[in-house]
């Protein structure tokens, strides 16, 4: 699968590179490398047999940028490789490899790219272009590179983006040894497609976004293979899963007023089997430079609703998120985020801690902790994770 994508886009890229050669004046190259040593520890014994507790791991992220025509034409590459004691987590991906050309009001991108839509912190509902790299992170913020042709046009009344997405990336699920898994191990190839075209269903997406005065608004529509599979659990505990063809409309809005950020994200998703309505809404308030210490303290609160109820894959169906972000604004850029998500109807709670600090000029230390507490039996997804509280420590070195 990766092989196809790479050949396809390398072909396009070489053609483009050669055709552009005549305009080349000054070409700027830049290579960066990020190495990560990671250790994850799950302090409770696994709920299922064979699950491990200790997961040492190494990550490598090379980045290469090439730009010319005063930065108006460029090629960006970001690779990613992880070696983990959990072989399902050992994986390779091309996060980005695309050619981009900007001219006046338009911008064209061809290749594997990462697109981010949305404004809220606890959940990313409208963000649909890229497949989630499920094994890589708990919060779902890590994404697989998505093959696309993106055309963007900026006007006085906002930016219009059109996406052509010719190929679908399958989600990778946890294996036998892995934590944060279901009773049955799901292989990514076990999940079937609603469309006969399978991964080659030609998806399209559109987005209008505009920033004016204190408002930042986005309205989007996606038609194609849903990035999230639908699961069916039968009486025997067997799971069948497939990727449906969906139509999803999304809205994201942020109002930035003094130290307040008011946020809302909402989606309406339809397919042959279910209609989904979900929203996340909340606010963020920052006390900046508290008592002239340079420290910023932000308070965040969001409400999460999903009408799929307990069948929502992310288990965020009627929950409240609260958190505090502390930025020390010191020389080492020390930052801390402490928070939790509580279910409104039952006892389930997930507590989180994320911290980071630079060491010297080219190292960074990251800490993450997730604590599953009082998970209710009614939670179809979360009950599987109730013994999977963990902490992670990562040391990054940048070259």
């Amino acid at each position: 699968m990766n092989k196809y994508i790479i050949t396809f886009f390398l072909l396009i890229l070489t053609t483009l590179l050669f055709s552009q050669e005549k305009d080349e004046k000054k070409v700027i190259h830049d290579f960066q490398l990020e190495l990560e040593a990671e250790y994850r520890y799950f302090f409770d014994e696994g709920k299922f047999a064979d699950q491990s507790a200790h997961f040492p791991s190494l990550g490598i992220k090379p980045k290469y940028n090439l730009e010319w025509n005063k930065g108006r034409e460029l090629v960006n590459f970001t690779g990613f490789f992880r070696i983990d004691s959990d072989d399902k987590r050992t994986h390779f991906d091309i996060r980005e490899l695309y050619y981009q050309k900007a001219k006046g009001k338009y911008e064209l991108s061809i290749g594997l790219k990462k697109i981010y839509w949305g404004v809220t912190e606890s959940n990313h509902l409208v963000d649909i272009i890229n497949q989630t790299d499920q094994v890589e992170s708990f919060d779902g913020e890590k994404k697989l590179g998505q093959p696309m042709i993106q055309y963007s046009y900026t006007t006085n009344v906002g930016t219009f983006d059109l996406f052509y997405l010719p190929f679908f990336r399958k989600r990778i699920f946890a294996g036998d040894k892995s934590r944060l898994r279901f009773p049955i191990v799901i292989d990514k190839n076990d999940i079937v497609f609603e469309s006969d075209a399978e991964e080659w269903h030609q998806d399209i997406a559109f987005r209008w976004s505009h920033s004016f005065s204190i408002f930042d608004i986005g309205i989007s529509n996606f038609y194609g293979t849903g990035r999230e599979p639908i699961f069916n659990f039968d009486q025997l505990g067997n799971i069948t899963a497939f990727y449906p063809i969906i139509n999803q409309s999304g809205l994201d809005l942020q109002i930035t007023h003094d130290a307040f950020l008011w946020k809302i994200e909402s989606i309406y998703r339809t397919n042959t089997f279910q209609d989904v309505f979900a929203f996340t809404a909340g606010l963020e308030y920052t006390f900046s430079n508290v008592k002239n210490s340079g420290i910023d303290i932000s308070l965040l609160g969001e409400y999460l609703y999903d009408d799929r109820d307990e069948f929502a894959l992310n288990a965020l169906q009627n929950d409240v998120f609260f958190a505090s972000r502390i930025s020390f604004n010191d020389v080492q850029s020390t930052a801390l985020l402490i928070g939790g998500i509580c279910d409104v109807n039952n006892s389930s709670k997930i507590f989180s801690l994320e911290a980071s600090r630079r060491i010297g000029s080219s190292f960074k230390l990251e800490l993450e902790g997730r604590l599953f507490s009082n998970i209710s039996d009614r939670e179809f997804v979360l009950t599987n994770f109730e013994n999977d509280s963990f902490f992670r420590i990562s040391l990054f070195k940048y070259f």
Partner: protein
Amino acid sequence: MKTHSIIIAILFFSISITGQNKGLEVAKKADAADLGFESSSVSLTMVLTNRNGQKSTRQMKTKTLELSEDGDKSLITFESPRDVKGTATLTFTHKVGADDQWLFLPSISRVKRISSNNKSGPFMGSEFAYEDLSSQEVEKYTYKFVEDKDGLIIVEQDPVDPKSGYTRRLVSYNKEKGYRIEKVEFYDRKNSLLKTLIYKDYKTYLDKHWRANIMTMTNHQTNKKTELTFSDYKFKLGLTDEDFSQNALKRAGK
């Protein structure tokens, strides 16, 4: 007796009015002297020194678009420290009211609108506050002329924004050299001297735009110091609004 005090009061009043007018006039002249660069770009290195003399370095690139009807637009891209490389900010300064600001986070390709409410906080852990580095629009201060000594005009500037970290700034303008700034003294909210900014190694570009190659900010209360070194100044680059869009922000950060 009564008439005397009234006359004295009127006299003081008119003196202070003249002081305000004269101060504002200097600020306007300085602003006018630098008009017409259209757009510019510069690389800068920031060296932070703590009270034990330990140093740490940040590097960034700035692009600016000059606008006359409203404040300037600027795009800052961070080069180092390496863990923040590719992070970029886009700022639309407004002559009146809060600035608009967006932050690009390269690790998740996210553009985030951020509050520009934080004026007095430190920029990247340095001795420069956000308000020291934002575009200096005439409308952001009220003015008082202090003195004219040996060609240096000293004007007191009081920030209009109550969220500013300063009660006042004392700015020394060099009349002979296109009203370029030589020194700024910052007084904190308790009106005690907080920081001094010294401009050094001036050069002229396009025969009229004075730019200091070195700016040194010393904090007298903490004994920390930050030195900014500018290099590779370029003017009239032909940049337009499209080079300061959210798409341009994403292109700049990587």
